[in-house]
């Protein structure tokens, strides 16, 4: 059973502060000089007020902060896992607003400050499984996405939700190259989006979301491959049809719309039966729905998951 008692000590209090304090000081030094003037002032890691430890958290050991924030796929900043941490400093995260529209009663554009007040923030320690065969355990901070979605009162005809990530041509070198049909978009079925596990994440390790992890607000769908969890979201649209999604448009045989973690269904270029947890040497078996089968299995009852991969 994965639903567990809250931890006695929320992860926000066990952050290896010295590690990233050093790193941030280094980054500030690194940017000093000519470029410093052109850049927004390096943000000090801002603590979030986290009031709840979530019953959805795993008790597994979180992946060290330096790896969670140093090994990322964020193609808007370019290719390579170390690239986002190097380049994302420039991302403008303030002012920020998220537009919720489409098939809803009350379309709205919400400022990030107001979104943060919608619900108490929770520590949620989730497993993250990348389609490339590696995984992490990330102590996210946020609240169930459903809280945000309910603000606009979806119509009965709304069946899907589309998420759009930000495009900032001046701060994101990757979007100047049309490898992906920018903006990056992802999508979920409405029932998936409303599932309590689906997280609107605004931070990790008890702090404001680092830019390279998708500041200031991102999606986290822990039972799906990482690419489904769109970063730096600016728009959420409700539709009656399956929205086109970025990786699926590029290589439909490799990246399905559902993209549920499934050890039985191989990616054409690699097996998905096992994964390497960052920090481990040996691979471990991948779990169905990334270990969240008890909670989300019923969403897919009767579906052929080989066909709807």
């Amino acid at each position: 059973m994965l639903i567990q008692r809250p931890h006695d000590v929320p992860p926000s209090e066990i952050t290896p502060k010295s590690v990233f304090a050093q790193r941030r000081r280094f980054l500030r030094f690194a940017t000093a000089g000519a470029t410093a003037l052109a850049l927004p002032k390096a943000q000090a890691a801002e603590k979030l007020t986290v009031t709840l430890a979530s019953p959805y958290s795993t008790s597994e050991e979180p992946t060290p902060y330096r790896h969670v924030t140093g090994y990322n796929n964020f193609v808007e900043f370019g290719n390579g896992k170390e690239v986002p941490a190097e380049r994302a400093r420039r991302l403008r995260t303030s002012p920020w607003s998220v537009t919720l529209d489409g098939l809803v009663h009350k379309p709205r554009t919400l400022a990030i400050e107001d979104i943060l007040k919608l619900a108490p923030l929770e520590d949620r320690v989730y497993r993250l499984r990348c389609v490339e065969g590696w995984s992490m355990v990330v102590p996210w901070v946020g609240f169930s996405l459903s809280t945000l979605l309910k603000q606009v009162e979806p119509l009965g005809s709304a069946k899907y939700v589309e998420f759009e990530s930000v495009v900032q041509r001046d701060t994101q070198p990757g979007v100047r190259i049309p490898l992906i049909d920018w903006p990056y978009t992802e999508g979920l079925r409405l029932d998936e989006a409303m599932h309590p596990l689906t997280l609107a994440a605004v931070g990790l390790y008890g702090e404001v979301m680092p830019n390279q992890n998708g500041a200031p607000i991102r999606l986290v769908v822990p039972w799906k491959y990482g690419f489904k969890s769109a970063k730096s979201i600016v728009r959420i649209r409700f539709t009656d049809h399956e929205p086109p999604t970025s990786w699926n448009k590029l290589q439909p045989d490799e990246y399905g719309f559902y993209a549920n973690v499934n050890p039985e269904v191989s990616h054409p270029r690699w097996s998905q039966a096992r994964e390497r947890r960052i920090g481990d040497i040996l691979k471990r078996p991948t779990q169905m729905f990334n270990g969240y089968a008890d909670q989300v299995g019923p969403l897919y009852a009767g579906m052929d998951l080989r066909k709807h991969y």
Partner: protein
Amino acid sequence: MENRIAAVKIALFFLCLAPLIHYGWGAWQDTLGANPIETLTRGLGDWALRFLLITLAITPLRRVTGWAWLMRLRRMLGLFVFFYASLHLLAYLWLDQFFDWGEIGRDILKRPFITAGMVAFLMLVPLAATSSNAMVRRLGGRRWQSLHRLIYPAALIAVLHFTWMVKLDITEPALYGVLLAVLLGVRLYWRVFAAPGAAMQTGFPRGGQRIIPIQPRR
């Protein structure tokens, strides 16, 4: 001259070991990032391909510069291709798959990029095995040379292996592809358009069975 070539070869030998030392030190010091096994495996593959292109550059370079001594470095460079390709394969078999032969077998059969990598490696095996002077003599110059033309398809398949592995941005494999196309293209150009007498320069005399072992003259 002989002393100078010996010195160049010794220096080159240690230079060729630099990538191994880099990754070995990185693994020891844990500076290979969040996913060191991936960094190591890919890095060794990169260097196998780089040495392959360097090896293929020797003949055109000699022809352009007229520096015949360059040919004396070619075997060592070729063996370093095999050395890094072997380590790359070993990293995959050992560190990535931990000798799970069932999984490895499925990978080879089902994943085109792994199939290509294996094929390219297998093509290198007979070349490494026949690299000694004794083997050149045993095979005879022409047969030896025919066999060693396997390096061309091996290089093409190696670039394909890299291209198929990449997820999105194929800039890097494309760059290797362009370099390879140039190196193979000049050979084709010389073969088709070169003056008849130029055949003398392609390593072995045409029609003759005489062997010219690539070894220091005394």
